[in-house]
């Protein structure tokens, strides 16, 4: 049904996909697997017309097609459920089901749409939802199901589902599985992107693995076991990337006692010591980030207590946590990590303006001393100091986003995905710098969905699955396989 060949894609200088091939037959479910950042979403976005490919050809039912926009893709019979939700909150559920669907006719009344939408909602188990209800009142899981209902409503030859179950509970996942099976049984070619092993084995006929932007020939699912699949995904290891672990650690600096917040289903208790690096390992939506956000004052703590350096700690805003010498770096560098249109020194001094100014005026001397200090500590080439942050490579942008926090001499550094979108070389450097900071007494807590990073960088690892903390283990006693099991299928690991 579908044949994609030699698909390549770059973002700036980063090569995300390189001569990737994917082939799916009618009536089959093709699982697309790979570590975070492997390029799965990018590949399906190209097919869905959201992103243009740099090179490569797409054939559908034997005919070469050009896909330049989501409309082209739809016209070619492709339906797509995005990894990031594409529900318009201000429209009704029924309208979201038929969003972008021109076949439903130019004229539509809320009632007729609602009648038309009901069977599809039923199929994904949303029978209790009023089709006229606004989508903004739906939970994230319900929204995800509405998207799947949308996919079902399209008479698609090819259906793409990018991590459709990341936000769902087990009961809801059953519905999705049922829907996917129906699709396949009706002759649709299904591409199913997921991190959950159980789904792969239950649903798919074949698996295509992407690793570092390259594809490997597809494998019959029946010939795989959980372990062999994990091996395929991880590929060769890069152990030399990581610095040695902590030699000495101090007293407990951060303590969480039965804390629960938005995104967590069970209370969390943790304790992190001075000089320690703690990894919160988990997939997107596992709740790992929620812990960081509670500590950063971004996410209110619903119940439980947090302690910092032995004293109660309840920040209400980022400014509060900064004042308490807790720095937080989110996983979206572009959104809230850097000032792309400002120079590197301005980025580096942003959280510490009081340290570079005198009498309310910025002192160029102090600022240059400040930024040079950080640049040296964090290995930012001094030649970059005259550039705009947005013009740096991904790796250097990340160094800026992290490094700016050194200016406030924090005790605790909270980082989400410390090396997202950063390539191998810069990655190793960032690990080295984080470790040397820890050695100087900083406590680092990072959330990551990258197994190698978790394993290589951390002293302790807390694994998360589906809003719950699975366990806390020392990095020494863990293996990539054990971590992957914990974060994608804890029951199998038990």
């Amino acid at each position: 049904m579908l044949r994609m060949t030699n698909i390549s894609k770059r973002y700036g200088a980063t090569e995300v996909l390189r001569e990737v091939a994917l082939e799916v037959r009618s009536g089959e479910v093709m699982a697309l697997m790979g570590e975070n950042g492997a390029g799965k979403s990018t590949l399906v976005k190209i097919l869905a017309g959201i992103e243009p490919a740099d090179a490569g050809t797409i054939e559908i039912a034997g005919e070469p097609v050009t896909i330049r926009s989501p409309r082209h893709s739809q016209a070619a019979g492709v339906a797509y459920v995005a990894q990031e939700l594409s529900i318009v909150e201000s429209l009704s559920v029924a309208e979201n089901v038929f969003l972008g669907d021109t076949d439903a006719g130019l004229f539509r009344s809320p009632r007729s749409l609602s009648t038309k939408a009901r069977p599809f909602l039923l199929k994904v188990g949303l029978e209790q939802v009023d089709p006229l209800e606004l989508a903004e009142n739906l939970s994230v899981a319900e929204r995800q199901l509405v998207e799947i209902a949308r996919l079902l409503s399209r008479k698609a030859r090819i259906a793409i589902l990018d991590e459709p179950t990341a936000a769902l509970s087990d009961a809801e996942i059953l519905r999705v599985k049922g829907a996917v099976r129906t699709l396949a049984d009706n002759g649709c070619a299904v591409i199913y992107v997921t991190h959950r092993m159980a789904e792969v084995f239950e649903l798919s006929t074949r698996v295509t693995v992407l690793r570092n932007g390259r594809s490997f020939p597809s494998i019959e699912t029946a010939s795989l076991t959980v372990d062999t699949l994990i091996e395929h995904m991880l590929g060769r290891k890069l152990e030399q990337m990581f610095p040695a672990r902590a030699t000495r650690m101090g007293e407990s600096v951060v303590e969480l006692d039965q804390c629960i917040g938005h995104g967590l289903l069970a209370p969390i208790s943790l304790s992190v010591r001075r000089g320690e690096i703690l990894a919160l390992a988990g997939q997107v939506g596992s709740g790992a980030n929620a812990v960081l956000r509670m500590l950063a004052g971004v996410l209110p703590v619903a119940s439980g207590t947090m302690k910092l350096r032995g004293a109660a700690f309840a920040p209400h805003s980022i400014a509060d946590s900064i004042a308490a010498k807790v720095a937080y770096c989110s996983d979206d560098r572009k959104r809230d990590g850097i000032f792309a249109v400002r120079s590197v020194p301005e980025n580096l001094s942003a959280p510490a303006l009081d340290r570079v100014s005198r009498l309310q005026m910025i002192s160029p001397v102090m600022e240059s001393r400040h930024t040079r200090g950080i640049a040296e500590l964090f290995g930012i080439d001094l030649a970059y100091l005259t550039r705009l942050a947005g013009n740096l490579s991904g790796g250097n942008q990340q160094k800026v986003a992290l490094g700016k926090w050194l200016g406030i001499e924090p005790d605790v550094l909270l980082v989400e995905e410390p090396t997202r979108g950063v390539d191998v070389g810069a990655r190793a450097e960032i690990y080295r710098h984080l470790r040397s900071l820890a050695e100087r007494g900083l406590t680092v807590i990072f959330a990551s969905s990258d197994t190698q990073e978790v394993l290589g960088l951390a002293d302790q690892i807390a694994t998360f699955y589906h809003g719950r903390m699975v366990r806390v283990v020392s990095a020494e006693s863990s293996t990539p396989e054990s971590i992957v099991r914990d974060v994608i299928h804890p029951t199998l690991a038990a």
Partner: protein
Amino acid sequence: MSIMTDVSPSAARRRSVPRFVWVIAAIVALYLVAGVITPSFATFDNMLVIVRAASITGIVAIGMSYVTISGNLFALSAAALGAFLAVIFALAVGHLGFAAGLAATLLVAILAGMAQGLSISVVGNPIITTLAFSTVFRGLAALFSGNSIVRIDSDIALALGTGRPLGVPTQSWAFIALALVSWALIRRARLGRLLVLSGANPQTAIASGLNVRLATVVAFVALSVGVAIMAVFTVSQFSQAKADLFAGYDFDYIAAVLVGGIALRGGQGSPLQAALGAILIALLQNFMLLNGFTAGLRMTVVGGLVLLATGAFHLLQRRLR
């Protein structure tokens, strides 16, 4: 490590020509072309005339650039606020004398700026919010003036309004000084930095512990102070204030900011660009005036220039990304 490699030639080529260079180039080009077409144009005297014509608009445009740089697009209330402040200044000078009148005007300006800044940081749409404020300010101007001309009789004010130290009008001195001071403040003051960073990326600014709300308030206070300076100069020059002063000026200020190439997404550009934009428009207006262009044609040309400049700068920026 790969990051230690030098700038690649393509990356070096990608570095942009600063926008103010484009504006200066346009000013020089227009000056030369106009000078050839109209002999009376390219004289030193006429240059002074142009700078003088740009001064009053320019002073407010400089204030407006703070708003734009702080990421708040622009305000539609400057003209109405100007009328209100002019009336306040005239009344206050009449009752309290020049110095106290000046202080009172500045105080009211700052309060007006704070009220707008705070509302905008809640509402989030500066254009609509200031549109609403403009009717309030115009109403207050009418209320306070009692629908009469408010006259002042102050020699200091007259000297301020009509003086020409070294042959250059006070307004032009103020314009030039304000442009330089504002530029220095944006570059060097801590509040200026706060403004720039908040405009560059408000989310990063919040995540860096910066007070973005304060930045919005500061920007609108800066604009109000610019407006107050304009009002004080105008009242001083003609020794009177009325409620319908400055009607229809708002678009001149915005045009100056846009033609100066200040990026509307915020966080970029400098008050100097607004000043240059004001000069470019004054130059064009002067040329058209001397060549007998009709009012309609003048307006169409300026509107066209604004469209051209915003479109061109926008595309220039997009290509660089």
